[in-house]
């Protein structure tokens, strides 16, 4: 039995060894559990949250743009989209076919939905058509019981209620392009829109607001289980403009009488812009949903450039509207004296070069008032070289030409006011005396925008205050416009201004004035101004001898630009307007439109009431995310 005892002893020894091995392994497991759950717990908690939590961005509501009376120019409209959720229907294609009986679908639209359905998870809805009309919406709602998997989704879409009338001021929004990406994650949202032109572009950051987000719990296949937390973003800031929508529409109508024209209407004292229009216009709503290629091509190739804001971005030689600048410079340089008179034979010779007055037979003897009233070129030719280009240019700059004036539109251009130094720098040539002669009547290198010309007149008639045009009055409830109403003085002597204004009054109200036929007869509402006709092509000596082709017989592109700057009432200037009619042949149409604008705005008394922003509508409580 001793061998049995040995056996038991051996067994006990070996059992203890085995037990030890097991104990060691169990301790290893304890260690491992401790490592994972105690030491590395934070890391794994983060990983688990990464697994289960998806961050969903909530697009902010874009700020609304109002006119001065609180009428919406750029608003957000409810947008209804019809969508289909593949997992909610047994036969996706049959569902779409049924839908197309209510809402006609093209075969390629059905195809694109089917393609998408194969590419993404079955519980994700696929958009079929957006921007449903009320009729379409009603038709789908009524037939909903038969439409398996079909549902209606609601979102916001930018809408411009007055379309073409405000297109150039407000601008439009479009899909996010590569260059718009600036790291704001909201830009990556499907269907997100950013400002492309006008105020929509200039105030993109303010109008956009900031995105909110929703933390949602998802399962392994990405399906939403529940919303954990929601942080509503900050909606975009609303803004109110100094623009008066009713006036704006009228101005747009007046401009539409011509093939291509633009106008700026502003307050001479404050610089507030009451209307700013460019014609022909376009419907900015085309861009929010994605413009068709054909429509885009048509707009882009039209010779009247409907997409361009010609009121701030069109540059034209100012023509005779520049004569106020030359007059003021001449008065300041004491070249034009109290009794300065010039005899106009219809031309003026410098060396062997002859400069022609627009009036073939000449004006006879004219003083400053009549030189302005009849727009005598010879008067200015004769004094121009005594003043000198640099003094003319300095006056032009004081009056707001040759620089971007800071209106809140990205399309604004600065034009050109030439000086001797400018020519040497840009063209590398010395200034020629003859060029001063040409510049004195607003031709040659001079380039101005309608906005600059309106500003020029404003500064002239408001007592020499350096107003700058502006149109954003309130931003997010703050009166940003107020700080823009104290303008520095540019030191225009009152007697000089009085003499120039007398000339401008004569332009309209003197029988001999170039715009006499457009005068407003009512003395209290009478206006003053200046005509301008700018050559597009140089008139050769040959043409003068052979007799000129009448403007209306020339191709549109080669006709003269017609300009008019005016203000009203003439004795107490308040409103300033500048109208440019492209290739009008003469200044008549521009003068006619200016008369109508100044007449209308005086009737409307625009600007009597301060800019009003509608009381903010309390934001609707966001609808609880639908469990999908």
């Amino acid at each position, binding site marked *: 039995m001793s*061998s049995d005892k040995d056996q038991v002893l051996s*067994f006990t020894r070996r059992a203890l060894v085995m037990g030890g091995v*097991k104990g060691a392994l*169990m301790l*290893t497991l304890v260690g491992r559990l401790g490592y*994972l*759950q105690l030491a590395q*717990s934070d890391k794994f908690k983060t990983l688990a949250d990464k697994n289960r939590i998806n961050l969903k961005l909530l697009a902010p509501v874009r700020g609304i743009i109002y006119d001065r009376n609180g009428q919406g120019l750029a608003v957000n409209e409810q947008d209804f989209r019809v969508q289909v959720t593949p997992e909610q229907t047994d036969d996706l294609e049959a569902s779409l076919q049924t839908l197309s009986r209510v809402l006609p679908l093209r075969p390629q639209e059905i195809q694109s939905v089917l393609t998408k359905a194969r590419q993404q998870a079955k519980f994700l809805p696929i958009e079929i058509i957006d921007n449903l009309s009320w009729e379409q919406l009603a038709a789908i709602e009524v037939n909903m019981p038969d439409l398996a998997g079909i549902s209606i989704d609601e979102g916001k879409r930018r809408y411009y209620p007055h379309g073409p009338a405000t297109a150039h001021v407000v601008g439009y929004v479009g899909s996010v392009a590569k260059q718009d990406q600036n790291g704001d994650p909201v830009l990556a949202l499907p269907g997100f829109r950013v400002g492309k032109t006008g105020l929509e572009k200039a105030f993109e950051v303010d109008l956009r607001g900031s995105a909110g987000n929703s933390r949602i719990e998802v399962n*392994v296949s990405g399906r939403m289980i529940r919303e954990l937390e929601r942080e509503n973003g900050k909606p975009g800031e609303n803004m109110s403009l100094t623009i008066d929508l009713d006036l704006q529409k009228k101005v747009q109508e007046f401009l539409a009488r011509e093939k291509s024209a633009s106008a700026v209407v502003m307050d001479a004292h404050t610089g507030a812009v009451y209307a700013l229009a460019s014609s022909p216009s376009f419907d900015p709503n085309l861009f929010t949903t994605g413009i068709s290629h054909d429509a885009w091509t048509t707009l882009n190739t039209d010779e009247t450039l409907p997409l361009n804001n010609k009121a701030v971005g069109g540059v034209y030689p100012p023509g005779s509207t520049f004569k106020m600048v030359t007059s003021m410079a001449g008065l300041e340089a004491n070249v034009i004296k109290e009794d300065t008179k010039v005899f106009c034979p219809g031309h003026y010779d410098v060396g062997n070069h002859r400069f022609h007055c627009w009036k073939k037979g000449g004006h006879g003897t004219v003083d400053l008032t009549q030189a302005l009233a009849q727009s005598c070129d010879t008067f200015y030719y004769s004094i121009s070289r005594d003043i000198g280009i640099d003094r003319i240019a300095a006056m032009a700059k004081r009056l707001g030409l040759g620089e971007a004036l800071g209106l809140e539109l990205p399309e604004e251009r600065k034009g050109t006011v030439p000086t001797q130094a400018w020519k040497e720098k840009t063209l590398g040539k010395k200034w020629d005396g003859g060029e001063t002669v040409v510049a004195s009547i607003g031709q040659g290198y001079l380039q101005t925008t309608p906005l600059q010309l309106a500003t020029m007149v404003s500064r002239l008639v408001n007592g020499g205050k350096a107003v700058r045009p502006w149109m954003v009055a309130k931003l997010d409830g703050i009166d940003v416009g107020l700080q823009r109403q104290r303008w520095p003085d540019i030191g225009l002597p009152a007697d000089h201004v009085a003499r120039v204004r007398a000339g401008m009054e004569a332009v309209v109200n003197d029988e001999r004035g170039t715009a006499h036929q457009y005068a407003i007869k009512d003395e209290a509402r009478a206006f003053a101004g200046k005509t301008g006709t700018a050559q597009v092509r140089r008139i050769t000596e040959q043409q003068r001898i052979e007799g000129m082709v009448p403007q209306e017989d020339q191709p549109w592109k080669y006709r003269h630009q017609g300009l008019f700057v005016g203000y009203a009432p003439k004795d107490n200037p308040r409103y300033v307007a500048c109208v440019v009619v492209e290739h009008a042949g003469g200044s008549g149409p521009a003068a006619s439109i200016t008369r109508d604008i100044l007449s209308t705005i005086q009737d409307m008394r625009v600007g009597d009431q301060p800019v009003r922003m509608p009381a903010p509508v309390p934001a609707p409580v966001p609808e609880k995310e639908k469990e999908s």
Partner: protein
Amino acid sequence: MSLFASRDNLGRSGVTSRLGLVPVPLVLSVIALACVGFAALYSAASGDWDRWAHQQAIRFAIGFVGMLVVACLDLKWIFRLAYPFWFFCIVLLLIVEISGVIGMGAQRWISLGFINLQPSDLMKVATVLALARYYHGLQGNEPKHLKSLFIPAVMTIVPVALIVVQPDLGTGLMIVMVAAAMVFLGGAPWWLFAGGLAALGAIVPAAFHFLHDYQKKRVLTFLNPENDPLGAGYHITQSKIAIGSGGFSGKGYMEGSQAHLNFLPEKHTDFIFTLWAEEWGFVGGMALLLLFSFIFFQGYRIGMRAKTTFGRLLALGLITNYAIYIIINIGMVTGMMPVVGEPLPLISYGGTVMISTLFAFGLMMCVAVNRNATLPRS
């Protein structure tokens, strides 16, 4: 001769008195484990009792009665049936193998109606029984003789070969481990095991070459799961995230995000420990490990107190088999071992493992009940 031990053998009478000898702590531990299983399965089904827990409870009830019946058997009968049972299991394995060849694809189970029986699970118990029976018959220095290794080798290699070709490498390896433990406890020379371990180190790289592709992938994935986060490494990675994110006190019962959002695969079977550790944290995991340790201790206690070699080897072999299950499963879900697809017995959802495990515990208890019984040498 009665199936239950006769009056004179026990000195006391009847089945009721035998029931009184069943070790109560072990029975309670088994019940506790099963309850952990029901709770975990209820959570795995997101609060649905019928999905898994109900069936599991029925199987446990049947198996539990079976366990107590086996516990009250006369150890002599078990001793006599050890070899026949081994042959019976070999036959079952062959049936599974042949039906697979005939064209039902790789199939590892035989349908018994209420459960699908996997013969490979029973085979583990059968191998332990057969080896215990064999070593019981050796005398004196016989276990140290090399020729005594021949029969145990056959008893091991035949079933392992049949299981590995199923293919089920994991179960095959587990039988090899249990068999090695039995041979060690039976008294085979020490140097054999030292040499065996050394040989293993040399052979493993070579053996790797002969593995199936999916098996190779499992091993490679185990070595570096993050290399392949969406492929084969996904299970291990997600399991580690689940356990780790449970932290000290867990996410709360039925609150395990990894499990309930389906990031965790097989959460009701192989990865049920993960679900438990995610929801109950380090505290819950440790409690379960302590319960397992207590069960191991009970098994050892029964083995050490048995008067016969058969009883000793049987109890220790079965508890070792159970321990291997536990260590491999938890080692796997915590990312310490390759994914071998072994469940956590009594907790994981599954019929065969439940039945074979309760059967094994019944045998262990039988050794305890019959601890003073004597058995013939051959």
